[in-house]
């Protein structure tokens, strides 16, 4: 749900990073936080366990600049990846404008990626969204790992609607901004249609 405020001339968009545990969701927004200039970024809020596992969500507000005289602000959220946090994941999807699915390229995690996409579809549906038409990007992360599966195989297993597919090494920042941009583009183009 995009919040367009004509009084303060602001557009707020909520983007959710989704994916299995340890695929690199938090790393994506940590990198964006480190890289963004201080006047653009808000505080990175992490509700994490003592061992740095996301407990509820990470949150990063970003001021992107102006479009058509409106200030554009993105609110980035990550979900906790572990299977047993499903109730929290569903809550975080509430009112989202776009989803970035972060896949873990390691061969051993292929199954976990597939399960997580299925889980995303269910949780989106419960929030009144359709995974087939919401702004959506597939990020193939951890491309640097020696155990990563070939690109073609990942595409065949995980890509289902010709969505933008971006290779990434999140802890090095590779592909991170490109992914966000691909999602932002779809959201803003959607505003145009509605």
């Amino acid at each position, binding site marked *: 749900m995009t919040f367009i405020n*004509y009084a303060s001339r602001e557009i707020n968009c*909520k983007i959710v990073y989704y994916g299995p545990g340890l695929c690199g969701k938090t790393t994506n927004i940590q990198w964006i936080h480190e890289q963004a200039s201080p006047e653009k970024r808000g505080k990175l809020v992490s509700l994490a366990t003592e061992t740095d596992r996301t407990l*509820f969500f990470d949150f990063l507000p970003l001021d992107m600049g102006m479009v058509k005289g409106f200030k554009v602000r993105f609110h980035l959220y990550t979900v906790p990846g572990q299977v047993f946090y499903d109730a929290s994941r569903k*809550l975080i999807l509430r009112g989202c404008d776009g989803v970035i699915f972060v896949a873990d390229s390691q061969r051993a995690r292929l199954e976990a990626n597939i399960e997580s996409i299925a889980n995303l579809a269910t949780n989106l549906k419960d929030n009144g969204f359709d995974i087939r038409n919401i702004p959506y990007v597939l990020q193939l992360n951890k491309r640097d790992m020696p155990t990563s599966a070939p690109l073609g195989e990942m595409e065949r297993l995980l890509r289902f609607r010709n969505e933008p597919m971006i290779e990434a090494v999140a802890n090095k920042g590779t592909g991170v901004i490109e992914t966000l941009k691909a999602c932002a583009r779809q959201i803003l183009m959607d*505003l145009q249609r509605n």
Partner: protein
Amino acid sequence: MGKLDLVMFEEEFTQLQEIIGRLQVDSSSKVVFLVDKNGQQIAASGDLRSIDATSLASLTAGNVAATDGLAKLIGEKEFSLLFHEGEKDNLHISIVGKRGILVVLFDHNSSLALVRLRVKKASRELQEIFEMVEKRAQSQSGESSKFESPFSEITDEDIDKLFGD
């Protein structure tokens, strides 16, 4: 449900802001926020300098969402009120209509009873405005042409510019 954008116009925003401002004065509180259930701040009043309002909005919404989840688990529709008591400052969080959250931050200059009383009145007024906004949104989703979106001509260049290239 799903994709129903919240579009707020000048006059509605001014009205909301007025109610929030009055509530803050009448309840002798430090700050009052009106937040959307999805975590976005709608309006605020009071001394905002010492507070990270964006984080507050997001965490409040997370808190309310989690509490909603708890309510459903035990068969309640929702808990309409949350109260957090600190050593100096207290947070009074209540639900307004379907999508609003009202957050009142107050200290010893006020009291829970006073805040409660004032919130009740303000909530009713806020709800009326929310209903108006919603009604308009619904009537417009049918005939979108009447409402000229300023985003009808977003280009790839606009998006590139946002990302600084």
